[in-house]
């Protein structure tokens, strides 16, 4: 049974070289970004799964640098949207502008920053709900509707939205239904002492590190298709499903659990991780590892759990331990 119709010759070449491709890719990223290997890996996983990621970190941890470096390494068009409370939907999607041509005035669509392959939506929780919806609609449908015209977004299309965990006053936190649209929620930690020393050494020189080599778009599209072909055993599918369904059953700590979208996301993310690691099968470790970024933004803890200082990651950890 052929699952996806792809050009077998090209895909075979890409598959055979996948290990080398990813190794080179991460090395190139490492020339610019110090540490944060886990974050970079999860961003790449989200791209391979044709999903989107929400990054939560304190200011100054290199979120913009990370995603712009990834897009450069993948030879993809990059755009950045700085969300503010006065940002309008048309500022994101684009708008029709009047253009005079040959003494004739006509409307011309001026595409917004959303028309890129990699979009960084910085501090998405500062934008108004209306503007957030415009962004999220583009993420979900991979198209933009302006007036009566619909414009398809170029593939691959990846949105990295960021949130600042501090200074939440005056912001519009994303509701649960919209958070669910993000495949992963990635937490960025402060670098270690040694890593920060390396950052200082690299970025206080006259020369700023640059990426020299990249991954072309066609190869990335092939890798996205190959991700879905990675086989997974029935036992692990059941494990993934058990983990997600237990989030709905653990009423002691979790008020609202994850939806079936999380089950799909978890398996896809595990497949992507297996491909990055150079394996042709999904392992139990992939499922357990990806459960945290897939589930942490989809759980609403009970008041009592929050009062005790429980985090969603701890709730996920408890569930993973219970599931055999």
């Amino acid at each position, binding site marked *: 049974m052929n699952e996806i119709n792809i050009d077998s010759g090209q895909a075979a070449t890409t598959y055979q070289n996948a290990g080398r491709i990813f190794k080179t890719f991460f090395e190139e990223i490492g020339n610019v970004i110090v540490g944060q290997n886990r974050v970079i890996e999860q961003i790449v996983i989200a791209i391979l799964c044709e999903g989107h990621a929400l990054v939560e970190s304190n200011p100054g941890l290199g979120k913009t640098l990370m995603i712009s470096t990834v897009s450069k390494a993948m030879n993809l068009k990059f755009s950045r949207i700085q969300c503010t409370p006065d940002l309008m939907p048309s500022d994101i999607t684009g708008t029709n502008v009047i253009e005079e041509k040959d003494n004739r005035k006509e409307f011309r669509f001026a595409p917004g920053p959303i028309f890129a392959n990699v979009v960084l939506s910085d501090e998405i929780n500062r934008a108004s709900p209306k503007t957030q919806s415009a962004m999220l609609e583009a993420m979900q449908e991979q198209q933009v509707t302006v007036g009566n015209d619909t414009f398809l977004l170029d593939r691959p299309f990846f949105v990295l939205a960021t949130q600042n965990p501090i200074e939440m006053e005056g912001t519009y936190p994303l509701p649960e239904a919209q958070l669910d649209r993000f495949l992963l929620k990635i937490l960025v930690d402060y670098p270690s002492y040694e890593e920060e020393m390396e950052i200082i050494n690299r970025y206080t020189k006259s020369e700023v590190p640059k990426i020299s080599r990249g991954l072309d778009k066609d190869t990335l599209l092939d890798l996205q298709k190959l991700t879905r*072909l990675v086989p997974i055993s029935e036992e692990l599918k059941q494990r993934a499903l058990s983990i997600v369904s237990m989030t709905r059953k653990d009423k002691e700590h979790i008020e609202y659990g994850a939806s079936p979208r999380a089950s799909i996301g978890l398996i896809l993310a595990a497949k992507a991780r297996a491909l990055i690691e150079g394996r042709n099968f999904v392992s139990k470790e992939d499922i357990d590892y990806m459960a945290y970024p897939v589930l942490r933004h989809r759980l609403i803890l009970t008041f009592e759990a929050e009062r005790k200082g429980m985090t969603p990651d701890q709730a996920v950890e408890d569930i993973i331990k219970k599931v055999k």
Partner: protein
Amino acid sequence: MALEIENIVNKHESALKKYRGLYICADLLATFLIFYVLFVLFNMRDLFLMFSTFEPYTGAKFNILGFGIIFETLGLIFLAFVLSLILTAIRYYRAEKKDAISFLEEKYPVLKERLRTAYDNRNTDNIIVRDLIGGVIIDSKPVQSSSFLDRRKLAKNLFVIVFTASVLAYVVGTGYQTTVGPTDLKGVIEKIPLASGSDANLYPVKENGGTSNNESNPGIFGKPEVIVVEGKEVDLKMPPGSGQGFTSQQEGNQTNESFIQSDLENPEAVSSQAYYENLPEGYRKVIQSYFEEIAKE
């Protein structure tokens, strides 16, 4: 490729089933021999004498395959077989059952997770699955089904079988027997205060009553007393059923006389005949001499 991976798993699965059958047979035989040896050592053949259902068959010989086997031996064999069957069934029901894939993955870590994934996706055809199945087939080539055999478990059972068979041969050959039997166990059970449910000093009362000649309970009735009055022996034996109330052997004849109400009498106390001064002839002397004999003792 799908067929090849299926054949590999099926081959090992059937080998595993054969070995499981072997373990069950060895366990069953070992358990059976243990039970049978214990039954023979502890004279459990006497058990059949204690049940009235089997009593008529005790000592009877049955011709089986040219051998004359007595009923008790057959009974013990059957009992040992049934008990060992139950015990073996319980043990195997409760034991953890692993399939061939789990066995292979445990024994050959290079196949861990890969074999199961390849097997589950054997009907899927894409470049990655083909690569996985190909790799698994190559890595499965050195796998031998004989590596699944738990030699230690079999050796243990074999030792038990040989040992118990030797003990049985010794017992049968020398006629060795212990002095412990089911009746001893019965006595032990009865001495347990709550388990027996009755006072150990009391003897059960038989339905048809007992006589002084009842040898199974020698203490109850004692020796029959004989009194000689004027040169004549007076039989003081208790007739059967005395003191037990009416039994089926002592039913009175039914009469259809209608009830006749007695005359109303003065309800004053009537003294027992034992205290009558005028006893029937012969009774006074018998009673007197009885008490004289007791006084002498």
